């Protein structure tokens, strides 16, 4: 009988606990190193050199980085992103939170329908989202312009200097509100039912329960979504890139830092400087996320 466990195994590959984690990590990590770490190292290498049309390539050390720090094209883009983020993130997450609370309250018709419907824009490629909204924004062909014309009202101008940032923010809200809503909704659903019963025994109304019990409980989730939104915002690229044809005067070649990096590499052929810009942007992203986390933690403590 003692032979039962150990010896009857049929030539099966037996992986032990000490080897297993490496084996499980191998496929991801191999690809992670090949397509993330290696390109990053390569890009970092690039950022230390300077290739010119005439003089060839030379090592310049930190010169590209020093240049980024005094490059208004880069910092204008960063400032613009801050404006964009301060506008878009609160609206998007505020709506997501509001609608998640409404859906979770149980006091609606068609809860499942709305939940899915709100999520659908996430499935629309940003290329197509930008294209569709581009049409919708058009003063002549856009339905809003057409409606205004029909009622002899001034046409709404979505693509002017003062409004286009809002118009891009609107696309981002449209695309990602539902995604955040689903996350909040799931977090809300995880709150034990007896809390609602307890608060109701304590005399709280549904609204009070939502704001004073549920909201604080899902705060950790909210903080995570804010951080991800900050990261997403600072990497803004596709929407302005694709909307550029509609408002080339306003969306210039360094509208966002990511866009600037793209222009530097692909139009100006300054691959080295572009790499440095990307790294500084990555640094800005890290710093902003970190500062936000510090603030959030201090609040929580």
């Amino acid at each position, binding site marked *: 009988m003692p032979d039962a466990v150990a010896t009857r195994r049929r030539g099966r590959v037996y992986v032990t606990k000490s080897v297993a984690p490496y084996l499980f990590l191998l496929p991801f990590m191999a690809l992670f190193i090949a397509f993330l770490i290696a390109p990053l190292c390569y890009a970092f290498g690039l950022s230390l050199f300077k290739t*010119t*049309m*005439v*003089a060839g390539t030379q090592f310049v050390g930190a010169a590209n980085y020093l240049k980024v720090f005094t490059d208004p094209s880069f910092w204008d883009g960063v400032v613009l992103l801050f404006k964009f983020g301060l506008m878009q993130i609160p609206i998007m997450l505020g709506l997501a939170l509001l609608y998640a609370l409404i859906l979770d309250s149980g006091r609606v018709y068609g809860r499942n329908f709305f939940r899915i419907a709100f999520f659908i824009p996430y499935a629309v490629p940003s290329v197509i989202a930008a294209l569709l909204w581009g*049409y919708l924004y*058009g*003063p*002549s*062909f856009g339905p809003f312009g057409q409606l205004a014309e029909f009622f002899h009202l001034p046409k709404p101008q979505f693509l002017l*200097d003062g409004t286009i940032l809002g118009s891009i923010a609107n696309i981002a809200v449209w695309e990602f509100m539902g995604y955040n809503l689903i996350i909040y909704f799931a977090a809300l659903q995880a709150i034990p039912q007896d809390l609602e019963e307890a608060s109701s025994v304590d005399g709280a109304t549904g609204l009070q329960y939502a704001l004073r019990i549920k909201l604080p409980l899902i705060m950790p989730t909210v903080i995570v979504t804010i951080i991800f939104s900050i990261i997403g915002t600072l990497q803004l690229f596709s929407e302005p890139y694709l909307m550029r*044809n*509609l*408002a*080339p*005067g*306003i969306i*210039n*070649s*360094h509208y966002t830092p990511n866009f600037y990096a793209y*222009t530097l590499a*692909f*139009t*100006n*052929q300054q*691959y080295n400087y572009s790499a440095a810009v990307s790294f500084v942007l990555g640094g800005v992203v890290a710093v902003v996320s970190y500062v936000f986390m510090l603030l959030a933690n201090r609040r929580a403590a």
Partner: protein
Amino acid sequence: MEKDSKRMTLDRRQFMQAAGAGLAATAVAGLPFAAVAQDKVELLLWAWTPDTQVQADMFTKKYPNISVKVENVGQGGPHYVKLRNAIQAGTGLPDLAQMEFNSIPSFKQLGVLADLGAAANPVKDQFIDWTWKAVSDGDKVYGIPWDSGPMGLLYRNDVFEKNKIEIPGTWDAYSEASLKLATDAPGTYMSNFGVSDAGWVAAVLWQAGWRPFHTEGTDIQIKLNDDIAKKWAGYWQKLIDAKAVDTKPMWTTEWFAALDDGVHASWVTAAWAPVLMQNSMKKSVGLWRAAPMPQWTAGGTVTSNWGGSTFAAMTTTPHPEEAALFATFMGSDPEAAALWNSKQFLFPVLKSLIDDKALMGAPNAFYGGQAVNEVFVVSENQVDPSFEFAPFQDFVNQTMQDEMSASIAGTGTLADAFDRLQDKVVAYATDQGYTVS
């Protein structure tokens, strides 16, 4: 070499005739091109003009051992991005690429354009002079032209008649008409000031005598903000300030609609525009007309070019002779070249086609039966050939678009935009190692 190339030319002409007579297959073997044609060769061409494969197949029909695959890797900008990326990567370049006139200096600078002289110089005389000058440097030829864009004026006959506007022969008259139209018919504009297309700006300034670049080796003269530019900027600034021109981004559906709806009464544009408009517009059929480009001096006969393309071979191609042969064929073969005009509706670069009255004199219903091409034929012969593009023209275009758009949006005047442009381009050129003067 000299001798060889002459002999080759002779043989090639004979060959073409023979091929035309349907004797291609047997003729090939006996030619000095034997090396070219004997092995099966496939060439890769990056081009975005629709149906380019049709002409490529015509070539293969004549040279059965050389097949050509056409790939569209992107329209305009993205196409060049792909080329540059491949250059940067050191691999992945096609054998040949479509190359607009204004991109030739840039890619020449990068050292990737093969000299097609041996195959192309013999047919040099068939091309409109300025187009050949734009692609060649002495005996060296960096691209074979097959499409050009001499400038002219397209206008709305209905709007002009309704508002009693004469066809403006000069820019002064054009300005007056703009102001008049702005007063008489609010909401209608004589034109759209299309700064979002740097190519248009360069073309219009070209006519005004602007010569911003002259490159010799690593020395470059940069005069983007000279008096000509400033004067030109002042001209348009006045119209912008008077709200006598529209400032829509070009190439958007909104912009097409403005032309179609008569919001824009005219467009100073190139020879490829008439067919483009005809294909894109439904409402304004029969309402458009063509006229010569307005002149800076009354009675002047100077025009310029906007757009137009060549085929260039890459130095990396393993089949330089076949590539040169193909590029030359695409530009100069009478049948293929005629097809550029009749199928792709491009404006020809061959003297024979320009002079072809039947081809150029066809009336066009979209233009009220006017033979619009005749206007551009005249323009083609008046293009000032002395214009030079920068060896980093994409950067110039990008920056020009940024700076001029910023001025339109309220950051200073157009003249300021040229000053900013000059500073940035000089800085860039210096940074790239050029000696700027």
